[in-house]
């Protein structure tokens, strides 16, 4: 699936619309879901104009399918995450409802971001299934399932077992796993507190709206003070309503943090793959060593280690030299196979390490760049909020001065 010269570098992808649909699900029950329009444009070299080449509708579950496929076929790649399935880290005003238009809008942006990440990845962008995702509306699901990727996926249990039992994982990956865990914990904490901060800030701004009303009422009984009070009250109303836009902008920052929160899972997936491979390697090496041992014992007749054969020999009598020869031959074959296996596993392991680490370095640079940009845009948002605050209060002050 990766041998495809198709490069998406000169392609523009956008998730331009979201639409509510009803349909029947697998159990023939009616359901409501949102479909997203994906438009692909190719950019003409000469004049930079883009031409619409493909346009199709996909729902969230299809994105999930694509991603799961990529995870299986590219275990050495830090696969970009999808936007959250359900709204989390919400502050009270935001809806946690998946059908809420604001949530749908933010998800649309998140899905677009996902596609852009994949298409700008040097390896992932060449994948055929990804290409088909963008171009083949019908039958795509069947095509993906035909790859049989679900079968190729490592079982969770196997992976967990490996994580506990592996003896010599690469230190870099151990460190990376710790880093991922810490980063996940910190960003979760940060998002939770940020949501509370947003809640409180909302409260502060909105209460000021009450000044608008009372100043207006008060101005009715005043002569000289009346106008000043009334117009100041208007500015208090402006102040109170300004918080809605401010906090909406901040959600974009939260989404950027969330992307990297979900990225930690992708990092951990790569680490897990390494642990699994390393464990398999260690098991293969161990198996080989024990077979060699057995062989040696049979050949020299010494029993150094416990073996079932040794036990049965004691119980039922020695075996014949022919039987012994036969067994030695089998073992020697197995050892030879084992050595080949170990060699290829070793090679596989080293390849994996090399490729995975290269992608991880790429990821780190991307992360540092993106998070810095996110912090800058956050600071810019704060600056804008401060300037608005100064403006409103300066206006109010001028009104008060005319009292």
């Amino acid at each position, binding site marked *: 699936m990766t041998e495809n010269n198709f490069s998406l570098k000169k392609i523009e992808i956008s998730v331009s619309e979201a639409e509510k649909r009803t349909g029947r699900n697998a159990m023939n029950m009616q359901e409501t879901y949102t479909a997203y329009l994906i438009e692909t444009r190719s950019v003409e070299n000469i004049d930079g104009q883009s031409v619409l080449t493909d346009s199709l509708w996909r729902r969230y579950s299809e994105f999930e399918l694509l991603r799961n496929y990529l995870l299986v076929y590219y275990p050495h790649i830090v696969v970009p995450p999808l936007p959250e399935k359900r709204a989390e880290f919400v502050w009270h005003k935001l809806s946690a409802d998946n059908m809420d238009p604001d949530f749908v809008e933010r998800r649309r942006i998140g899905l677009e971001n996902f596609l852009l990440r994949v298409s700008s990845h040097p390896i992932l962008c060449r994948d055929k299934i990804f290409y088909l995702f963008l171009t083949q509306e019908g039958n795509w699901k069947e095509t993906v399932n035909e790859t049989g990727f679900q079968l190729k996926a490592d079982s969770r249990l196997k992976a967990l077992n490996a994580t506990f039992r592996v003896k010599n994982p690469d230190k870099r990956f151990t460190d990376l796993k710790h880093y991922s865990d*810490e980063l996940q914990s910190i960003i979760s904490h*940060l998002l939770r*507190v940020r949501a509370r901060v947003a809640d*409180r800030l909302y*409260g502060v701004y909105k209460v000021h709206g009450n000044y608008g009303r009372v100043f207006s*009422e*008060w101005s009715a009984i005043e002569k000289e003070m009346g106008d*000043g009070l009334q117009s100041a009250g208007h500015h208090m109303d402006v102040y109170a309503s300004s918080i809605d836009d401010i906090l909406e902008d901040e959600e974009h920052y939260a989404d950027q943090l969330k992307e990297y929160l979900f990225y930690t899972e992708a990092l951990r997936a790569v680490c897990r793959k390494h642990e699994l491979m390393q464990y398999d390697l260690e098991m293969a090496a161990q198996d080989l060593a024990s077979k060699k041992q057995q062989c040696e014992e049979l050949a020299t007749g010494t029993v150094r280690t416990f073996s079932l054969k040794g036990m049965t020999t004691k119980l039922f009598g020695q075996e014949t030299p022919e039987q012994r020869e036969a067994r030695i031959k089998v073992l020697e074959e197995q050892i030879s196979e084992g050595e080949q296996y170990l060699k290829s596993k070793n090679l596989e392991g080293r390849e994996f390490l090399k490729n995975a680490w290269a992608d991880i370095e790429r990821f780190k640079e991307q992360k540092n760049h993106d998070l810095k940009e996110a912090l800058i845009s956050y600071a810019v948002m704060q600056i804008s909020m401060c300037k608005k605050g100064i403006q409103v209060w300066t206006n109010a002050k001028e009104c008060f001065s005319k009292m």
Partner: protein
Amino acid sequence: MSGGPPKALQSTGPHSLRDMPHPLAGSSSEEAVGGDSTPSPDLLMTRSFGDKDLILPNGGTPADTSSPASSSSLLNRLQLDDDIDGETRDLFVTVDDPKKHVCTMETYITYRITTKSTRVEFDLPEYSVRRRYQDFDWLRNKLEESQPTHLIPPLPEKFVVKGVVDRFSEEFVETRRKALDKFLKRITDHPVLSFNEHLSVFLTAKDLNVYKKQGMALLTRVGESVKHVTGGYKLRSRPLEFAAIGEYLDTFALKLGTIDRIAQRIIKEEIEYLVELREYGPVYSTWSALEGELTEPLEGVSACIGNCSTALEELTDDMTEDFLPVLREYILYSDSMKSVLKKRDQVQAEYEAKLEAVALRKEDRPKVPADVEKCQDRMECFNADLKADMERWQNNKRQDFRQLLMGMADKNIQYYEKCLMAWESIIPLLQEKPDAKKKSQCLDEPSR
């Protein structure tokens, strides 16, 4: 609010004096005023009116012309309007320097009252005494008794729930000091109250307790008579202007109450916001310890949020200490004003009742008995004093609220300016490109 630190005592205010010809032209005052020595007929008239209400301790007349200081003080008295700029004022009072006194029976705070005046009633040009809240309370009661036709400014609240507020904390004492200072300044600004005997004693006596015990009850003629007004008369009809004042005060107090609640709510929300911010900032710091290239940017954001938190704390402190107390003072003020209005109603009611009684006794119709005339006199005085005080009060109220609300706006502007500065200053830090050395370091994550 009347002008801050006491000014120099020579001929006050260049502007208004220069404009007015000096009625008692002397050689020294000529320099101060500008040389024209023809007395203005207006000044002479107002001078006689002023006499009626003034009682001077040394029994002298206002026209002591021996020194330029006293001539200008005469002029001040003759000017009935409050000079807001304080340029023709001759009495300056400041409350400062709170000190804690620990005695066996109790612990309390005293404040230093500094008085500077060129008035003849004061033997010395300057006085410095120490007073405690009790003394202020005594003064206010005496003023209410002796000048019942006038609006007496309020004192800060007397009772403090122990355990809830620490009445010896710096913030509480400072808030109270400001309120007491305001109280005295309002009184010394008042053309009638500032000449009250009790005030003079309050400002000058070494030991106020001795004076209190003597129970000197020097009441004005009006005060004395109003004191004996009996209640129980029903008012026929309130003159429109006083009815209007009553309605105004009702709505005014209501609106102030609402504003007080809103302000308190805002402070409460801001404090809760502050609590969250104080948790928010440090998370960036923890994160920065985990990173390599992002260490400084994240640390910078953490510090920035810390600065904003501090600025917010300053805002809430300021609002609590400077904004809320003034609001509450005005609510107290309007309450005490309402009781003066009630008293006025009683005086009018008594007069109306007596007048009606006379009308019924047909024999006395041509001649109006003396006591009914006294009642009428009393009522008209009250009405005039109250009207004048209301006007003054409205003007001062406008000034005070203008200043209060501008102050509130200012504090918010300052808060946002501090935050703006913090965020603007980290932008260059965030945009900084790591140099080559740093870059090679951060390719490996810091080891755990």
